[in-house]
């Protein structure tokens, strides 16, 4: 029977089902038939492997760049194909042979052979990450298996059958096939047609009762037909369109930096069964916030290497999402395992604020920070933030003609500047500071014990990773441990540093914004100002915030906030609402790693695309997007509940807080607010 070509996979499967009734054996081509590649060019998988080998060489003191490794591989593989061509019709190559030869050439004889398993494992992982099983075909293969047909995979490929079996297993087709046959083992390929009689002889198959499915009209079609098989060929225009787009994005990214991030997202795309209908929030997590967080973590890895960081601490609660994504990314971005160890650290502004006063008392800057949120008004708010009992301070306050309810914030009614001066005098009062230190001593000690338990003091330099914005947590943490001789150098990395108040940087205490830092002008990245809360909510851990550290005998205890009250319940509700968004972010990290390893780009290369994403999504969002991503409840114990005076509310409502009707029916709203944002940033 002549071969049949199908432009639609469903039609091919329908016809295949009919033909399979009169067949005992069904064989499938592997690449571009059973499995599709995320990339347009299969050779692109070789590039990260070349980079991996070059890194291995560097760690062993061999100076070689990855381009040279790739050239050597191409040369050795081509030589092997030419050599095979002298004996066999097909010019095939065998991966273990040429790869061991390559490694021996680079590392010398015994080491090269020893390293083969490691390199082969990485190449297989890379190949596997770039392959997706075609759901319709896999379902059909399952049916054929149940019908008792003999099933084979036949591939013209340089990887031997043992390695192809691993790829088939990883694609979720374990035990479906009787055997996997590769041209790398026999040097007899489908291209010449010699593979078919070879397989027929080896397994005792009758060509007339053998159905073959593939994508190549020559190897899988014409040659199979000549061997007496029935052949079905898939020529899917949708696959051609996808690959053509992937090719354009990749090629454009070589010349135009703007497309580098887009090409990476094209490689991250879920395909076939991976691309299931999802809620809108999942979409935002996968296509918007996920890539931003992954780029942040990629840059973090690079910076930690440069700064020779001993340990990375992801600060709660936003650090929870960072650590989850970090786990997904690390096997791909750091296959040599050179990254410092990481740990999730239970901290919060509220918990650290009190502990920071244990040795140094309440500093004026820290007291000023307490009055940044508009809901904080008086001494009671200061006490709430720094875990102090305000009733004990009545004598101290009276000495300075203050009460616990005296207004100390200029944005509240009843504010008098002289009261703030009196408050500053109070901060200089040694008796007052002694009481502050007495009340917070236990908290400070418990914090130190907790930090000791996580190995915080065993490194010279640690990275403190947080979402943003002012670096308050790091500020309090450094204050709390400043008295210790073994306090490490703290290098803070924030997703975005908006720096509302100057950060006290020193040799042992530094802070840097990675995606955005107010210290460097970046208009596009500054659009983070539009909606900082959504990043906080998107990254927040599904556990309550930390209220403080408590001594527990010789040990310590972490005190998490109770969730029974209305605020706690609102937060649980918010966490449930954002669950699809967080799922999208983690899924994005799962695919960002292999895509970034494949592209081999630094975050600086991706920045134009990330900038576009930020402007497009934050400054020019659709109404539907704002409605979906805008948080329902945002809990922040740091913020008090007192209402500032009316003038404070006269400022324009931010875009992300506008009512839906305004967002929908005001065509110039977004450009107007963007102009305002532009003006504000220039005037900063």
């Amino acid at each position, binding site marked *: 029977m002549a071969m049949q070509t199908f432009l639609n996979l469903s039609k091919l499967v329908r016809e295949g089902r009919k033909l399979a009734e009169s067949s005992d054996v069904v064989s499938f081509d592997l690449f571009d038939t059973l499995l599709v590649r995320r990339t347009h060019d299969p050779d692109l998988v070789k590039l990260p492997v070349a980079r991996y080998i070059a890194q291995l060489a560097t760690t062993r003191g061999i100076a070689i760049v990855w381009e040279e490794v790739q050239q050597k591989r191409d040369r050795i593989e081509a030589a092997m194909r030419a050599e095979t061509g002298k004996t066999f019709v097909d010019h095939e190559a065998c991966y273990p042979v040429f790869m061991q030869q390559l490694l021996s050439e680079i590392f010398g004889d015994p080491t090269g052979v020893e390293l083969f398993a490691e390199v082969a494992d990485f190449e297989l992982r890379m190949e596997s990450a770039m392959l997706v099983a075609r759901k319709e075909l896999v379902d059909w293969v399952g049916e054929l298996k149940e019908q008792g047909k003999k099933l084979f995979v036949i591939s013209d490929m340089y990887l031997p059958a043992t390695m192809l079996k691993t790829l088939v297993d990883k694609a979720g087709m374990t035990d479906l096939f009787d055997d996997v046959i590769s041209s790398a083992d026999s040097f007899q390929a489908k291209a010449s047609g010699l593979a078919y009689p070879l397989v027929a002889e080896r397994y005792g198959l009758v060509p007339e009762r053998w159905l073959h499915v593939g994508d190549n009209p020559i190897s899988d079609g014409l040659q199979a037909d000549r061997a007496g098989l029935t052949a079905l060929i898939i020529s899917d*225009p949708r696959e051609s369109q996808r690959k053509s*787009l992937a090719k354009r*994005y990749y090629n454009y990214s070589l010349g*135009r930096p703007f497309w580098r991030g887009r090409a990476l997202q094209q490689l991250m795309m879920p395909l076939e069964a991976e691309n299931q209908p999802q809620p809108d929030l999942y*979409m935002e997590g996968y296509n*918007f916030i996920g890539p931003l967080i992954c780029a942040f973590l990629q840059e973090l890895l690079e910076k930690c290497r440069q700064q020779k960081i001993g340990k990375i601490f992801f600060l709660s609660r936003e650090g929870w999402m960072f650590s989850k994504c970090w786990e997904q990314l690390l096997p791909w971005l750091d296959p040599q395992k050179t990254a410092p160890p990481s740990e999730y650290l239970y901290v919060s502004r509220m918990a650290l604020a009190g502990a920071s006063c244990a040795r140094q008392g309440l500093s004026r800057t820290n007291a000023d920070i307490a009055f940044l949120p508009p809901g904080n008004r008086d001494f009671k708010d200061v006490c709430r933030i720094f875990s102090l009992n305000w009733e004990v301070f009545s004598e101290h306050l009276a000495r300075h003609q203050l009460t616990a309810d005296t207004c100390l914030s200029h944005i509240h009614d009843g504010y008098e500047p002289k009261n703030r001066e009196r408050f500053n005098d109070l901060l200089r009062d040694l008796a007052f500071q002694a009481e502050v230190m007495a009340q917070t001593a236990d908290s400070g000690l418990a914090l130190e014990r907790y930090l000791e338990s996580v190995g915080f003091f065993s490194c010279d330099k640690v990275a403190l990773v947080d979402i943003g914005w002012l670096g308050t947590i790091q500020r309090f943490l450094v204050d709390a441990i400043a008295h210790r001789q073994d306090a490490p150098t703290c290098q803070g990395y924030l997703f975005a540093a908006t720096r509302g108040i100057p950060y006290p940087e020193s040799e042992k205490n530094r802070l840097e914004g990675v995606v955005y830092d107010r210290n460097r002008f*970046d208009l596009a990245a500054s659009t983070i100002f539009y909606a900082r809360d959504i990043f906080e909510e998107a990254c927040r851990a599904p556990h309550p915030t930390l209220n403080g550290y408590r001594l527990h005998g010789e040990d310590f205890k972490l005190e998490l906030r109770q969730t029974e009250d209305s605020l706690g319940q609102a937060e649980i509700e918010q966490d449930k609402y954002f669950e699809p968004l967080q799922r999208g972010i983690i899924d994005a990290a799962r695919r960002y790693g292999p895509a970034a390893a494949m592209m081999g780009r630094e975050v600086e290369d991706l920045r134009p695309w990330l*900038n576009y994403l930020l402007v497009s999504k934050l400054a020019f969002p659709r109404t539907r997007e704002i409605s979906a991503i805008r948080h329902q409840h945002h809990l922040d114990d740091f913020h008090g509940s007192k209402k500032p005076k009316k003038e404070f509310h006269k400022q324009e409502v931010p875009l992300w807080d506008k009512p839906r009707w305004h967002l929908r029916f005001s065509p110039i709203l977004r450009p107007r607010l963007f102009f305002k944002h532009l003006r504000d940033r220039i005037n900063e």
Partner: protein
Amino acid sequence: MRRVVNSRFMLTGNEHHRLCGLAAFAKFIPIGKLRGGPGARCLFTLSVLHYGGYWLYFLQARYGHRLGRVRHLLTKVRRWKT
């Protein structure tokens, strides 16, 4: 409920026409560092592929074998040009 990638291989929520719109806006108002931006020619080619790519490849798969003469002619023109 939508898919992360739509039937035109665009990222849902970040479709190609949205990029074209912002690129046009960025021609007049600075929106930040885009290092040269997307480029009109790239945008045009990608628009053709995203919106009409399926039918182009369908025609190529269905009737591509009949285009041998046209391809031959195009190759000749290209050679003549260079």
